[in-house]
């Protein structure tokens, strides 16, 4: 922009100066003619008096222009012309740069979105999030819908006390929830809801785009203000931006709510990765989640379910604020397990997120990986440029001979590189857009969609621009210096002269070695991650995940099972549901359990076992219906599964245990028929079955001892049950999922529905990081390998051309083709060898250095796993040898007569 303005100004100045000088001369001519000179003479005299008009014009003009700038313009135009003359070269370079820069931009913009993006709220730097690190809350709480850990959740009563009585900050609370939505009687897809305190929007400074936001008066008396704010996206997707939406009624979990406003498009809540569709007041919690104990009245006020965001008053130190909020904890708060914990404030200007912990390691590693890919691309382009510089020797020699300054030439070559880099960067941005979207889809696999604000921010654009220009200089500077360092006479005299070519070859070889070493690093890394993933997948999780669909169901009162009559009512609903589901033709078996691989928390600890070693091991008690083991594909080793006779309240109490339990509780003995009694003499009944171990929460931890109990005999459990359905071979997941939804709906219209997912998806969700890093590092590893091979090929193809004469002489003197090929190949293999040696050393060194970071993501492998390194080395050696062989073969096919005659 500035540049255009400057050019326009320059043009005007030039025009004005020319006019002025012309009028000067004309005046002089007139004066002279007045004094009696004839016109021709007067004109000549005037010009003589004036002196060299062009020179003066130039030097007057130079006063204004920076010469540097003007020359830069010339360089740019010349650069574009030159690059257009060699379209293949230009395309190859731009493509490899676009891949390199695109990958960097993609990972960077993900990192930006997850870690640094500032929330679009008023004064985000004043925002802090409250949490209680140290230990975990011993209280299980019901399906909070958030990626955050337990330490971020606070009870309602505590929130009110802190909000009203603290002197240091304004506090707003919120809590995510999955909402059942219906509009005008028709069932809608479930929506992400957020229950917010009355001051939530005002604290954040969010203004509505239509209607009004939830205000303090909406959040005073429980269940009194059924109002909802919808997000801009929901407004757009569900209501087509219809302005009459505000004022309409929307049914949330069976209660009518009035839509009072729309939140602005850029606001997606304060939690990164989750974008609420519908906001309701905290006080409406009992209405939107009828199945859960009210969190705003009665005993529920001490249940932690709220996340709290604080806006500190100016000049308050966060540490002081935390200390003053700590004062609100007293042991008589009725909060077992949290009295010993300390309130902490963490900055929330970039949003609150569990993703940061979950993905930061992965993203940092990927960032390093893509940086290396870009380095390889740079090395590649640098060697291409070196070759090109040799081809351009006559041109450059000619320009030097004509008096061009060396620095001017270097600059011109660098301008060319920067042009390439910028073009690469621009395409890279496009690629990155596509790439980030698919990566986010990947990251959200197996859970509710991850919604990240991925619009290019200034930070990302600056990053890309800086990377592009840096790469341009990086790959450009050495070739430019070398290209202009020419001994003129031979270069001008003889176009095929090779002096100087040798040294540029040497530089090319150094680059090739570097590329090989770097690619090896990436390949070995990719190998590690892939093998780690394979280890995880191959690991026997103890259940058969194919063909199993799961859906969470939660009828009313399911958290109040300890109350009289409730379990029986729930049991009727569950039994009815199971019958309906089992009646679907494609369903092979179906059952309910309170656990799933990604939803372990309801499997409350049921006590502990004294292991033989004397150590106490926590036992997990899980509540299931008959046929659970069959549905999950868990083999029953001994005894039997539960059956319908176990389902009555009066039947004998029975339980099934897993292998680990049997091994720990009854080492070396037969567990069948033994009674099971918990620590606090809770009775689990007689063991009637022994099943294989299966893994739930984490696929890489030890299996805990498990007791399975039938639903009605369970001691204390609340929360949702998870329906597990095994399809037979004809079952189509989508179709069955729809049928399951319908049946659940028929059973009880009030049952909140969650998505139907396959067990494989659930397992994948647990492994999402490992899968992402394995897939991407493989992708980048292969990309690096390809780039490196192109580099090796390029260097040796070029070397072969340079040595055509030599080869021709060898052939003419009777060397056999294979010997000729070997000359080239030997050299190439030597380079590959050196590259591999350097690469392996780097891997070992950096492996030890970075093991802390990387080993967390590896399962069953060391960072310096020799087998992986060996395989990567072998692969690289093979591919590199192939890349070197092709030019060698071509060199050996030289026709001596043609080649020598050319010489």
């Amino acid at each position, binding site marked *: 922009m500035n540049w255009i303005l400057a050019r326009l100004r320059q043009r005007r100045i030039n025009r004005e100066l020319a006019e002025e000088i012309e009028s000067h001369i004309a005046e002089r001519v007139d004066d002279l003619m007045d004094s009696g000179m004839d016109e021709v003479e007067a004109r000549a005299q005037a010009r003589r008096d004036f002196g060299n008009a062009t020179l003066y014009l130039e030097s007057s003009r130079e*006063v204004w222009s920076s010469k540097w700038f003007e020359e830069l313009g010339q360089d740019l135009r010349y650069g574009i012309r030159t690059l257009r003359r060699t379209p293949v070269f230009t395309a190859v370079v731009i493509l490899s740069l676009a891949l390199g820069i695109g990958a960097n931009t993609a990972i960077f913009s993900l990192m930006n979105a997850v870690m640094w993006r500032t929330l679009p709220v008023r004064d985000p730097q004043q925002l802090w999030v409250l949490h209680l690190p140290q230990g975990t809350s011993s209280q299980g709480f019901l399906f909070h819908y958030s990626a955050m850990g337990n330490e971020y959740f606070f009870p309602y009563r505590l929130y009110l006390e802190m909000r009203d009585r603290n002197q240091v900050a304004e506090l707003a609370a919120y809590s995510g929830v999955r909402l059942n939505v219906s509009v005008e009687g028709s069932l809608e897809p479930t929506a992400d809801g957020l229950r917010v305190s009355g001051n939530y929007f005002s604290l954040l400074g969010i203004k509505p785009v239509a209607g009004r936001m939830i205000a303090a008066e909406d959040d005073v008396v429980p269940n009194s203000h059924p109002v909802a704010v919808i997000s801009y996206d929901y407004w757009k997707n569900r209501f087509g931006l219809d302005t009459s939406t505000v004022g309409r009624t929307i049914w949330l979990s069976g209660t009518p709510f009035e839509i009072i406003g729309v939140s602005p498009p850029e606001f997606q809540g304060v939690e990164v990765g989750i974008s609420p569709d519908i906001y309701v007041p905290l006080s409406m919690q009992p209405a939107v989640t009828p199945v859960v104990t009210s969190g705003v009245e009665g005993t529920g006020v001490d249940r932690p379910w709220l996340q709290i965001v604080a806006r500190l008053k100016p000049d308050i130190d966060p540490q002081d604020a935390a200390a003053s909020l700590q004062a609100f904890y007293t042991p008589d708060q009725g909060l077992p397990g949290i009295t010993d914990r300390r309130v902490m404030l963490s900055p929330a200007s970039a949003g609150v997120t569990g993703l940061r912990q979950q993905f930061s390691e992965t993203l940092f590693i990927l960032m390093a990986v893509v940086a290396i890919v870009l380095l390889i691309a740079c090395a590649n382009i640098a060697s291409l440029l070196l070759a090109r510089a040799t081809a351009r020797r006559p041109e450059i020699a000619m320009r030097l001979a004509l008096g061009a300054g060396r620095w001017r030439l270097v600059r011109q070559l660098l301008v060319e590189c920067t042009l390439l880099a910028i073009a690469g960067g621009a395409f890279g941005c496009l690629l990155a857009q596509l790439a980030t979207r698919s990566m986010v889809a990947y990251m959200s696999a197996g859970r509710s969609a991850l919604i990240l604000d991925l619009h290019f921010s200034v930070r990302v654009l600056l990053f890309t621009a800086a990377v592009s220009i840096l790469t341009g200089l990086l790959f450009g500077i050495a070739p430019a210096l070398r290209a202009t360092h020419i001994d003129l006479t031979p270069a001008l005299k003889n176009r095929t002269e090779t002096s100087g070519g040798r040294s540029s070859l040497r530089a090319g070889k150094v680059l090739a070695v570097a590329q090989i070493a770097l690619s090896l690093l990436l390949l070995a890394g990719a190998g590690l991650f892939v093998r780690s993933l394979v280890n995880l997948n191959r690991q026997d999780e103890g259940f058969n995940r194919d063909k199993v669909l799961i859906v969470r169901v939660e009828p009313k009162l399911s958290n109040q099972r300890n109350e009289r009559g409730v379990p029986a009512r729930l049991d009727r609903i569950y039994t009815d549901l199971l019958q309906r589901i089992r009646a679907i033709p494609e369903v092979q078996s179906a059952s309910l359990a309170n656990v799933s691989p990604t939803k372990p928390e309801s499997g409350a600890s049921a006590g502990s076992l004294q292991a033989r070693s004397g150590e106490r091991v926590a036992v997990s008690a899980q509540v299931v219906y008959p046929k659970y083991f069959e549905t999950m594909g868990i083999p029953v080793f001994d005894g039997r599964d539960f059956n319908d006779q176990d389902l009555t309240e009066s039947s004998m109490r029975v339980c099934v245990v897993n292998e680990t339990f049997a091994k720990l509780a009854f080492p070396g003995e037969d567990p069948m028929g033994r009674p099971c009694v918990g620590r606090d003499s809770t009775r689990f009944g007689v063991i009637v079955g022994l099943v294989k171990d299966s893994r739930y929460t984490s696929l890489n931890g030890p299996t805990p001892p498990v007791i399975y109990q039938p639903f009605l005999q369970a001691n204390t459990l609340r929360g949702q049950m998870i329906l597990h359905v095994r399809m037979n071979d004809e079952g189509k997941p989508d179709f069955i999922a729809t049928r399951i939804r319908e049946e659940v709906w028929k059973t009880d219209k009030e049952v909140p529905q969650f998505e139907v997912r396959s067990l494989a998806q659930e397992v994948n969700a647990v492994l999402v990081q490992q899968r992402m890093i394995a897939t991407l590092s493989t992708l980048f590893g292969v990309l690096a390998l390809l780039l490196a091979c192109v580099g090796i090929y390029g260097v040796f193809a070029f070397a072969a051309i340079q040595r055509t004469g030599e080869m021709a002489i060898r052939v003419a003197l009777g060397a056999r083709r294979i010997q000729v090929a070997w000359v080239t190949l030997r050299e190439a293999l030597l380079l590959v060898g050196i590259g591999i040696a350097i690469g392996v050393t780097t891997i070992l060194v950096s492996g030890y250095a970075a093991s802390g970071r990387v080993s967390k993501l590896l399962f069953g492998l060391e960072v310096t796993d020799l087998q992986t390194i060996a395989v990567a080395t072998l692969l690289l050696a093979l591919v590199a040898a192939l890349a070197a062989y092709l030019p060698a073969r071509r060199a050996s096919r030289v026709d001596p007569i043609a080649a020598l005659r050319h010489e």
Partner: protein
Amino acid sequence: MMILQTLRRAPLHGYALAQFIKRASEDLLQIEEGSLYPALQRMLKSGWVGAEWGISARNRKIRTYKITPAGRKQLDRHVSSFERMLDGIAKVMKVIES
């Protein structure tokens, strides 16, 4: 300095300025008229003179230059340092003569 001094008397356009300096120096200073323009441009850039487009007596488009306050200050500085220098030279010359 000569240009600024001249312009201090009255605003002038390029040609008039050249003629004035030529006449005032009684043709002792053999300067090409064109050399005026780079100098004027430099002064324009430094803000010592301002310029305005106008029409000459012969009905030609001309640019009239006018000294600015900054230009005056600059001139004073120059003149005084120049005078000091002349003074110095004169004294040295006198010492040698005597």
